[in-house]
Every structure is written in C-alpha cells, then in structure tokens.
C-alpha cells in the first residue's frame, strides 16, 4: 500500500477550496429550525380551521336570530366548513413531508459526528502508520505520519457538508416552489382569518349590544363568554398566522443563503438567527392559543 505525497497535497488544496461553504453545524441548525417550522404549521392550520367553523356557526346563529335557517342552508354551511378544513388538513399533510425532509437533512449532519467514529478512524490510521513503520525497514510502504489521519478525517467531514449543500442545490427549484407556495397559502389563510374575525365581531356587536335594546332580548351569559374567548383567541391566531408567514420568509431566506457559493459566515448567522427568532415568537404565540 502506498500513498503519494502529491495526492495528499492535492486533497488538502481541494478541501481548502471548499471551506468557504457553510459549515456542518450551520446546515444542522438550518435543518433543525426547518423541521421545527414545519411542525408549527400544524397548530396554525388547525387554528384556521377552528376559526372558520366557529365563524360559520356564528353566521348561522345570526341568520337564525333574524329569520330562520333552512336545513339545506345548514347542510351547505357544514359542507363549506368541512371543505375549508380539508384544505388546511392538506397543508398539514404537506408540512409533514417537509418536516421529514428537514429531519433527514438533520440526521445527515449528525452522521460521523460522534467521537467514537472519529476515534475509530484516527485509531485505524495510527495503526496503519505503525504498521508502515514496521514495514519501512523492509523497504516497503512510505506513509507520511501525520498527513493521513488528518486528510481522512477532513475528507469524512467535508464529504457530509458537500453532500448537504449538493442536496439543497439539487432540490433548489422544488424547495423554492415549496416556500413560495407556503407563503401564498399562509397569506390566503391570514386574509380569510381576519375576515372571519371581523364578521364575528360585527355579529357580536349586533347580537349583544343592539339587538337587546331593540328586541328586549337578554343574551345567554355562556354565549357571551364563548364569543369573547373566540374573538380573543382568533386575534392570537391571526398573530400566529402573521408570525408563521414571517417564519416562512426567513426559512426561504436562510435556504437561499446556504446554497450560495460563498455567503460569508456573518450573513449565514444573521439569517439563521432571524429564523430562530421568528420561530421563538411563533411558538410563544401558539402556547398562548393553547392556554
């Protein structure tokens, strides 16, 4: 077995050229944040579905208070609410695929990270060097004592980072479609949520403020409590939708930076920290909605 010193130098030069790319830790952070982002889409979509169902119920209550609701109208509203939620369920299912993808990327960043493998690789080549030293007396193998282990460890490390970047670049168009579509979906959901909540507020104003004055009707206290909760939670779901939209923009921005040839460490950190900040904000809003 022989290793030409020239090959080792060429290998090191190649590795030096690749060092401008994002590090494995940065890819790992991005993948982890991407996975967390995909997970947060589920409660956001579920809140949108719930607000739609509640808003449709309030429209029916409003109609019933002014006239009557036919069974056909009732069934149409039921179907309309279910159709809307079927779309938010599709969004959740898709977020599952996105989460699985980021999960695989994260797993890839973790491969070979453990000390046991590094020690095994270093140990193997140290043994090989010792073997070379024994054979040298016999005029056989010449292995530079320190270069081999270093090169192999670097190759193993760089190979993963290169694979990560190649993977993201290969998936560039698909991910760009993914992020752009998710942003558009969230914009539609956000506009719809705002409309539903505005309608609920208008109905509440009529049912609980004006109608009792005109018709001498006293509203059920339980309804008052339920409506207030719905409106206040609806407001936080609009804020969560805003935060989800901002997080989607940050995921796209981080992704675009990571696939850039030489983005610069400061820019990568800036993008990833912005994404982490938006996700913290979103998680905090989602926690408020659950209480």
């Amino acid at each position, binding site marked *: 077995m022989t290793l030409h010193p020239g090959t080792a130098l060429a290998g090191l030069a190649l590795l030096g050229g690749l060092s401008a790319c994002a590090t494995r830790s940065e890819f790992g952070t991005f993948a982890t944040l991407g996975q967390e982002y995909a997970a947060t889409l589920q409660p956001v979509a579920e809140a949108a579905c719930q607000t739609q169902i509640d808003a*449709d119920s309030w*429209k029916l209550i409003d109609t019933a208070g002014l006239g009557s609701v036919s069974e056909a109208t009732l069934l149409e509203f039921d179907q*309309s609410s279910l159709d809307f939620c079927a779309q938010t369920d599709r969004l959740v299912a898709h977020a599952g*695929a996105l989460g*699985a993808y980021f999960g695989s990327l994260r797993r*890839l960043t973790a491969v070979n990270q453990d000390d046991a493998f590094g020690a095994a*690789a270093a140990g193997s080549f140290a043994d090989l060097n010792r073997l070379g030293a024994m054979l040298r007396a016999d005029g056989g193998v010449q292995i530079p004592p320190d270069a081999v282990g270093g090169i192999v460890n670097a190759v193993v490390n760089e190979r993963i980072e290169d694979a990560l970047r190649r993977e993201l670049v290969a998936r560039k168009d698909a991910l760009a479609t993914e992020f752009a579509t998710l942003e558009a979906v969230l914009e539609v959901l956000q506009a719809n949520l705002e409309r539903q909540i505005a309608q609920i507020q208008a109905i509440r104003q009529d049912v609980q403020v004006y109608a009792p004055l005109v018709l001498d009707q006293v509203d059920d206290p339980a309804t008052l409590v339920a409506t207030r909760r719905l409106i206040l939670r609806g407001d936080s779901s609009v804020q969560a939708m805003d935060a989800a939209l901002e997080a989607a923009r940050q995921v796209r921005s981080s992704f675009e930076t990571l696939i850039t040839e030489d983005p610069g460490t400061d820019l990568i950190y800036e993008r990833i920290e912005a994404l982490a900040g938006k996700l913290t904000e979103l998680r905090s809003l989602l926690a408020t909605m659950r209480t």
Partner: protein
Amino acid sequence: MSKKAELVALLRDAEMDLYLPPFRRWLRTLPPADRQSILNLRSEFTIQVNTFVTTQLNELLDDLVPVEAELRQAVERLDETIDALEDFKTGVEWLGKAVQVLAKVVKAAL
C-alpha cells in the same frame, strides 16, 4: 393589484357589508317574508365566498403535489446515503481491527 386580487377584495368587502350591524337593522324593518328571502340570498353568497377561498387554497396546494413527491423521494435517498455512511463507519472500524491483527502478524514475522 391583479384582477384576481381585486375580485377577492370586492367579494370580501361585499360579504363583510352583509354582516355589519346597519345591514341587520335595515333587515329588521322589512316584512318577515322579504327578510327571509334576503337572508337566504346572503347565506348563498357567503357559501360562494367560502367556496372561492377554499378553491384558491386548493389551487395553491395542488402546486405542492409534485414537490411533496420529490421531497419524499429525497428523504428516501438521504436515508440511503445515511445508511451508506454508517456502513463506511463500520468499514473503518473493521479496517482498524484488521490492521491491528495484521500488525501482530507482521511483528511476529519480523
């Protein structure tokens, strides 16, 4: 603003007006039969607006079907890559053991 966005805004404003208190106060002044006819029309219009929003979401999510398939394939390929790297790790560990055995043999022979 695109024509589609204009239409969306128009539908939203129109539907919103139907739920504002002045509209309901006006409705209460009508005879019951007329009021019911208008309420039926309002319900129909609301359903149509809801359907419009749902269709919009549906069209957007349709764009993600091929992307979702690609992501699932990518997950499979990445898992294969991870398995291959794990195999490489096992290979290196095996090489270490083999070299140790070989070293003992060489040492004994020398």
